[in-house]
Every structure is written in C-alpha cells, then in structure tokens.
C-alpha cells in the first residue's frame, strides 16, 4: 500500500506544466476563440513531440505505453493551463478504446497516427448526444443500436453546436451504420462504451482539479494586490474564508480523482463508483472555485476582458461533459442503495 506518485510521475507533470507555460499562455487560449477551427495543428504537432497524444498508446505503436495514473497528472496541467485541444477524446478515451477493442487492423492503422499527432479521434458520449471535437476529428467512434462504429470523418454528417465556453467544440453527428465499420456489438460494445465513459469522466475531473487550482491562484493574487479601506482585501476574513473553503473542497476532490485514476488504470471492481465520486467532487470544487473567484474579483471578474472566465466557463462546461453531476450522483446512489455496482469502502475490509 502506497498512495502516492513516483518521482518520475511528478517529473512528467512538471515537464508538461513547463511546456504549457511556454506554449499555451492564456493569450493563446483566447486567440483560438477567433480562429476558423478553434484548434491549432502547430500546437498539436509540438504536443506530439513530448508524447502527450500517445501517452496511452502502446510502445509497439509508437506511444509512451503509460497508464491513467500518469495521464491524470497531465490532465491536471491541461486544466490549469486552460488548454482546449482534443486531448480527452484522442489521448484519454479514443486511443485506449482503439487499443482494447480487439480490432488489430484498426489499432495498427490509427494508434501510430495518434502517437505522431497525425490523427484526431472523436468519441460519442453515452450520456449526451453532443460529440466533442467532431469537426476536427479524422475518425469518430459512434454508437448506433447495439453496435459501436469507427467512422471516418468523410462518412459523418456533422452539425456544429455553439457552447457557452468558446473553447469547447461540440457537434451532433449522424451516420449510416455500416457493418464493415462496426468494431463491437452487444456486451462488447457496452463494455467499451462504459470504459470510454469512465475514462472521459476521469479526464474531465482531472482538468477540473487543474482549473480549480488556477482559480484559487488567481483569487489569491488578485485579493493580495487589490486594496480597499487601505488594506489588501485578502486580509479580510470574509474573503479569506471563502477562498479557504475552495481549497478544502479541492484537496478532498483530488484524493477522489487520484484514487479513480488508479481504479481505471487497474480496472478495479469499484471503478465506476470511484470515477463518479471523482467527477462529482472535482466538479463541485471547480464550480465553487468559479463562483467564489468571481465574487472576490468583484466587477472586474464580471468583464469579458479579464481572464477569469476562461476557467469559469471551463468549470461550467466540464461539469456537463461525460455525465453531468446529477447523472454521476445517481450512479453512486444506485450502487449504495440498490447494489447496482460494487461500492467499496476504501481500506475497510468487509467482515470475513
């Protein structure tokens, strides 16, 4: 029993943090709002050079062969930076789905391209008709009836939707189900889709942790600089205590997220409940972070110009991605009260 990250894992996190500081300042995030696609091929190519898209891709296909525990630390940094590129559907959900679906030809064709940054994958969310990153995707993994299909972009009819977070790219996708594009049916399709949901929710939760850290940092900085009544407003307990409350929510959410990462990486029996707990806790922490940060920034935080809303909007929309909070709450409640899933009390072994 050792519930901590290794030095190598921390070094990876640091490296990604430093990379994003240089390549993804908030000016970059905001500039992408006004471009045609909202996505940057140049950035993605550089991201592939440090291995992020292929983090979960096996080494024989050119990836790093790492697992979700490693990826979670990377996703936290992505959330902190406010980066909006197709990391979740491509690296966190698409790559392992293609790896695990048992279709050797599909894996051989797409995994190397994911690792080199030459393929973007979109994956349908089981909890919503909105497909993230469909417009920029080369391959879409979509559900129809009891089958899961790998559909090339050319075969998908995409209707873009506009999100309240200008960084989010969502679309409704229609396609004609073709047998030669079917990658799984029945229980196999359900299993892959269930795993995709948990991976997507975990990646969203980890970003919420990073976004929440950023919101706290901005609030501390602003309330230390801003003076009223001749003193920094951060010296008032009414302000301090609100920010302290976010920190409490954040640190306990982080524990859930790190446990969920382990559960997904090791496919533990409690995986789904662990992921839902993480998604709920991280979502609540990030939402508390956004409302509190807005309040302590006062009118300045209410402007489009101030960068605070980059992370506020991210917190709002991540809360809806890969199962909104209410959906995850019901999944945990079902497990606890109707025994629909295993909900294990950590450490506390049941009576022998």
């Amino acid at each position, binding site marked *: 029993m*050792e519930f901590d990250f290794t030095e190598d894992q921390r070094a990876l996190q640091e490296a990604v943090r430093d990379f994003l500081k240089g390549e993804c300042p908030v000016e970059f995030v905001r500039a992408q709002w006004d471009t045609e696609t909202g996505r940057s091929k140049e950035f993605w190519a550089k991201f592939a050079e440090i291995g992020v898209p292929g983090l979960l891709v096996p080494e024989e296909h050119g990836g790093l062969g790492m697992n979700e525990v490693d990826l979670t630390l990377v996703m936290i940094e992505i959330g902190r930076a406010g980066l909006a590129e197709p990391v979740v559907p491509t690296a966190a959900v698409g790559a392992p789905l293609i790896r695990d679906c048992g279709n050797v030809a599909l894996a051989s064709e797409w995994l190397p391209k994911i690792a080199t940054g030459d393929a973007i994958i979109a994956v349908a969310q089981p909890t919503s008709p909105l497909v993230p990153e469909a417009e920029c995707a080369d391959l879409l993994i979509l559900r129809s009836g009891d089958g899961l299909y790998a559909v090339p972009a050319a075969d998908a009819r995409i209707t873009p939707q506009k999100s309240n977070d200008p960084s989010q790219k969502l679309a409704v996708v229609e396609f004609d189900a073709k047998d030669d594009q079917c990658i799984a049916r029945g229980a196999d399709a359900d299993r892959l889709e269930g795993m995709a949901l948990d991976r997507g929710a975990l990646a969203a939760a980890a970003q919420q942790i990073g976004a929440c850290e950023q919101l706290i940092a901005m609030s501390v900085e602003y309330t230390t600089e801003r003076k009223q009544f001749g003193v920094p407003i951060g010296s008032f307990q009414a302000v301090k205590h609100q920010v302290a409350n976010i920190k409490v929510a954040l640190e306990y959410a982080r524990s859930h997220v790190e*446990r969920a990462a382990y559960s997904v990486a090791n496919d533990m029996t409690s995986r789904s409940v662990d992921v839902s707990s993480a998604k709920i806790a991280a979502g609540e922490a990030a939402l508390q972070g956004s409302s509190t940060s807005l309040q302590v920034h006062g009118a300045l935080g209410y402007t489009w110009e101030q960068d605070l809303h980059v992370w506020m909007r991210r917190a709002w929309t991540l809360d809806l991605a890969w199962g909104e909070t209410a959906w995850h709450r019901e999944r945990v409640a079902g497990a606890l*009260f109707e025994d629909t899933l295993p909900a294990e009390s*950590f450490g*506390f072994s049941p009576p022998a």
Partner: protein
Amino acid sequence: MDLNYTPEQEAFRQEARSWLEANAPKEKLPSFDTKEGFEAHRAWEKKLHAGGFAMVPWPVEYGGRGANLLEWLIFEEEYFRAGAPGRVNQNGIFLLGPTIMEVGTPEQKARFLPKMASSEEVWAQGWSEPNAGSDMANIQATAIKDGDDFVINGQKTWASRGAFAHWLFGMFRSDPDSKRHNGLTFILVPLDTPGITVRPIEKLNNKKAFAEVFFDDVRVPIENQLGDEGKGWEVAMATAGFERGLMLRSPARFQDTARKLVDLYKRSVASGAFVAPELRRTVAQCWMDAEAYTLNTYQTVSRLMAGGKIGAEASLNKIFWSELDTKMHETALKLLGYRAELLSGSSEAGDVGEWLDGYIFALAGPIYAGTNEIQRNIIAERILGMPRK
C-alpha cells in the same frame, strides 16, 4: 502507487480482527463522561494494553506495538468494525504522546509514555483560558521558576476529560514580561497537586466531564517542562498538528458512521416510512465524503512513511472531518423523522439515542482543537499565502 495491502498487512488485519472479536465488550460501555463509564473505559484500555493493541504505532519500550502508521490505519478499521469502545485517554495517547516522543527527554518518555499507553494515567488538556480561546497566544496563567519548581497561578477552562483525569498538559506564561507567543512554556501537571481546584462543567449532553481548573501557588518540578523553556508555543503547535491532522480522528470512525447512515437510509426506505427525496443524495454525499477523508489520510500516511511531515494542511482535515461528522448525524436525525427528539429509554426511540448522542458530540467538532474559523485563517495565510493584514 499501489493500493493493495501486502500479505503482512493482511495478516496483521486478521490478527487484530481475531483479537477484537474475542475481547471487545459485547455490550456498550456507559459514557466515559460519567465516573462509572470513565472507570469502565479504563478497564477496557488495560485489557487492550495487555493484548498489545493499546498503542499500535508506538515503540514497544513505551507500551506500544512498534507498528507503522499504515498498520495503525488498519487497526483503526478493525477497531471500528468491531464496535469497540471510544478511547478515554485520547488526549494522552493521540496528542500528548506523539509530542513527548518528538520533544521529550529520555526520562520523560520512560516516565510518562508507558502509563499513558495503559491508561493508568489519563490526561486532560489545559489550553484554553477565559481570555485565551481562539486567541490562544493571550494565555495569562503563569508558571514562575522558584528553585527546582515552577509555581503556577491562574485558570484553565474547557479542559477535556478534566473532571476525572489524573494529569493535565498545557501552556503557561513562564516569563511574566513576555507577550503573545513568546515566553510560554509547556508543562505537565499532576491534577492531585495541592493548590489545584477542578470544577466540572456540565456539557451540552447533560454530563459533567470537562472542567475549569484553578491554580493557586501550585508547585510543579521543573523536570515536568516539555521542550524548551519559553518555547511552549512551538511544542503546542506540534501537538495541534497531530490532533487536527491525523491521530485524533482516524478515517475508520467516519466510514463506520457513513455505513450506518447508508444502512439507516435503506431500512427507512424499506419500512415504507416517509423519506424526504433529497436525503438520497445527501446520504450518498456523506458516504463519498467519508471515503474522501479516508483516501486523503492514506495519502498523508504514505507521505509520512516516506519521511514527510504534517504541516498547516492539518487544518484542511480538521474542517473536513468536523463538518462531515455534523452533516452525517444531522442527516440521520432527518431520516429518523418525528422520533429524532426521543431519548433512549422511550418506548418509540429505537436506535435514535445513539444518533442523538452522536449529533450532540459532533456539534463540538467545529469548536474544539481550534475553531474552524481559526483553521480557515491558517489555510488562507499559511497554505495559500493570503495577507495577514
């Protein structure tokens, strides 16, 4: 990261489980807030000590088992699973003991720790004074050196276990010209010393268990000073870190309450009684929060075992467990509906009494061990770096 127990850890769990099954009292002991219950709990501690389980993480020479903190967590899980009694000497074993181990002299360790481990000597806390609560640096009780003794004068209050305990630990102003955090000394005081008057105070639960303690020219030998003279504040902060951060409230306690709450919810629904719809969500949230506290503690223990220290982050824990405990008991009382006011012994009460006792106890949580407002100041200033002034 490896979230599996080793075979040795599993074997230790089995050993603790078997011993507790064979030895833990089958009937609930009377409250240790009464004289009778206090002695019954001391008798249980004696048995626990004889079985080698009183102080699992302490060195064997001080009456412990020499186990590591992870094994302590496992033991606590089994302890709560077995429904074993509350720890009457928690001020000593969980708070003062670790502090003596860190800053005590070899003589102090040998003198105090074994009798603490066996609860032959039960300890009270002497922090607060009438004018030094949240503002603890305003301590005014004095301990002035005179020959080989300190002479103590003044008053302490809200001394937990004060009504029945044998010893008291606390901070006193040893330099009468000093201000605030300076000039305080941490001193261990036998409560049967002449000049001490203990006046029990009736708590919200109707029992006289904590106390005011008055000192009138009380002579205590200078070897009872813990840590350096004038450095009491630093010693006290080490104690507070353990109290808030780890030992006082092991996660198993809250997991146990959370599981009882889940069970109560299921039974309430199954009985056909009215259950407010929002309680489904609240109960699930309580269970998740107890899990979060557990996960966080395992992370803290992993860090400590790798050589880390508990710092200001202990304040995060204290807020989280105290507010969770209150929320769980409030929720249970809502599930119990109209019965929630009934005391044990009423024919309609069922298991209300235990939840009601637990609720009243939980209400103290956000106040003792440093109010949650003080913890929020610590988080804001010492963890986040927000301005003090």
